């Protein structure tokens, strides 16, 4: 008896020492890919050209106006979309949701279309604001609808979200069709960083800022992830944290949308993979998700630039293919064990 009370809780041994290894690997990959991203492109920007570049060389100019902005934009978009996925998953307590499977992306796209139609001369800030407001509305509608669904089955929740997105998406397509904007819609919603350069990507910093905010509020999201009652019992203002999460998700979705278009699957795949590696503690997993998301999009963007050199193929195609494969793998391995 006394033994039971006085015995010290065993000091937690690092359960899986290989995690550190994976962390180092992610860091190294990130550095390698960043360097590759800076030096891969149509023009000749190589370290050699930078050093020896005479007055005729554009290397330094291109590095500053094109390569660095593009790399930064990809990093921020990749990192933040993973976080947006994580937060949605915490809010809904479901592993299969992300802005793309909950209708948030479709709502934000509708917002973009509406701002294009009604205020065509509006600067990009304005469009982003409209898209963000619609994204927020989308998150809210989704949360309301999910609450109304009686059965909280794992697959049912994203299914509801996908249906919601389908309805909103078809409204968008209908109006785009009537207004002859279908091809424009297709062009700007297709994910691609080809047009990213200085002066064209700065909004994605907002998404980057949201990653930091999410990190500060990480513990709250972890608690929210345990359910409303639990969170309230711990003295947390449930609604305020949910509202914060919604704002983060909407701002990330909208700023990535106006910068590069829709990047599918990311918010789904990355948080799930990270959860397999280090578990569900949001504070610990946020840097991992940011890093892995950045690596994923960066690698895909480099592939997009290289496959049809000197032309580019849309990034969303590559992310879609690789993302879908990883997602299937996640689904299938799930069957083997209860995760």
């Amino acid at each position, binding site marked *: 008896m006394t033994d039971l009370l006085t015995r010290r809780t065993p000091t937690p041994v690092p359960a899986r020492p290989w995690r550190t290894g994976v962390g180092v690997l992610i860091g190294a990959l990130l550095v390698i890919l960043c360097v590759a991203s800076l030096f891969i492109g149509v023009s000749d920007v190589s370290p050699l050209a930078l050093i020896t570049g005479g007055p005729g060389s554009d290397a330094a100019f291109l590095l500053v106006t094109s390569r660095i902005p593009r790399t930064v934009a990809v990093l921020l978009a990749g990192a933040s979309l993973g976080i947006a996925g994580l937060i949605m998953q915490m809010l809904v307590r479901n592993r299969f949701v992300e802005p793309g499977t909950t209708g948030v992306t479709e709502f934000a796209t509708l917002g973009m279309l509406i701002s294009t139609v009604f205020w065509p001369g509006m600067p990009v800030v304005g469009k982003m604001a409209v898209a963000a407001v619609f994204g927020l509305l989308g998150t809210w509608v989704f949360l309301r609808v999910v609450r109304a669904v009686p059965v909280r089955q794992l697959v049912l929740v994203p299914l509801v979200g996908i249906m919601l997105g389908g309805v909103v998406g078809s409204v968008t397509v209908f109006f785009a069709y009537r207004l002859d*904007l279908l091809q424009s819609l297709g062009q700007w919603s297709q994910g691609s960083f080809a047009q990213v350069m200085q002066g064209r990507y700065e909004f994605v910093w907002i998404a980057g800022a949201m990653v930091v905010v999410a990190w500060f509020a990480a513990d709250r999201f972890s608690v929210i992830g345990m359910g409303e009652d639990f969170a309230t019992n711990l003295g947390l203002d449930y609604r305020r944290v949910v509202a914060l999460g919604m704002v983060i998700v909407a701002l990330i979705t909208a700023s990535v949308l106006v910068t590069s278009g829709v990047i599918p699957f990311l918010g789904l795949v990355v948080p799930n993979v990270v959860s397999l590696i280090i578990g569900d503690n949001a504070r610990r997993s946020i840097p991992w998700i940011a890093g892995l998301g950045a690596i994923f999009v960066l690698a895909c963007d480099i592939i997009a630039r290289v496959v049809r050199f000197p032309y580019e193929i849309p990034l969303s195609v590559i992310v879609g293919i690789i993302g879908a494969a990883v997602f299937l793998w996640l689904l299938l391995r799930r069957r083997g064990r209860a995760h």
Partner: protein
Amino acid sequence: MILQRPLATLSFVAVSALVLAGCSSTDTAAGTTGDEAAAESVSFSWDRNTADEDEEATYEATTVEVPTDPQNIVVFDMASLDTIGALGGEIAGAPLDSVPDYLQAYLADDAFNVGTLFEADLIEIEAQQPDLIVIGGRSAALYDDLSQIAPTVDLSISGSFLETLERNTEFLGEVLGAQNEAATALADLEAGIADAQAVTADAGTGLGLMVSGGKLNAMAPSGDDATGRNARGGLIYDVFGVTPVVEDIESATHGEPVSSEFLLEQNPDYLWVVDRDAATGTEDAQAAAAVLDNEIVKQTTAAEQDQIVSLNPTAWYIVFGGLTTTQLMIDDVLQIAE
């Protein structure tokens, strides 16, 4: 019984008309001036794609007899609308929302709406009893439905742009009894195109660029065979003789996505820009000029020497192929001659 088998009826009419046409063309040969030929019908043949949308294309030689001097013409193809109007015909029905401003004058005062460039309002067309329907390009798939209502011809591009322009203009001239006007107009345009080619021959390299939704697409030459919707991208090279800065762009309908860096690296002397969003009436804040107004494009020869040429988006993207429109296109190219 006759109503149930309109195709059979139609072919019967066609055969009898063919006989008549045969007779009258003999008359013409005997006569002195072509314009007086009072042929009652003109035949038009083309290879019609009978496959469904998602099937491999299969072509069937199709010949349709068209009455001459039709009074009630329905046109889905903007290029044909342009040519019919330029030759003095009047259009009774068209997809009114798609008729560009500069072709509005060719519509009858009480012109009725026939649908969109892609879809037909069959009930309205049936009610209006047209005696000729012209389709082409975007509306080519409407043949089966429309040919039940009235003689329908598909004037889609077949062969090169110039071959098509010549074929369609001559055919429509014959239908409207305006062979001489057609011949004059064609000669004028050919001279204009030759002028434009002379100008572009000395202008160095060029790149056709379509700007849409804030993204850049490089256009490719389509060679001698402009059949299909690739045509418009290559017109600047194929018809107006611009030397392409790169040859191997795949002729995707809307070109190949490229970055601003691509423009700097290839560095064409001229950029020929079609603003797709302007063509469909969106005055997007990210219109072509805004997209191209960036630090990288500013470094290109085309920008430094003020050689970024805006092409009339409606003419180059929507209509391309009609008489008035071809003149607009020639004028666009001749801009650089000063």
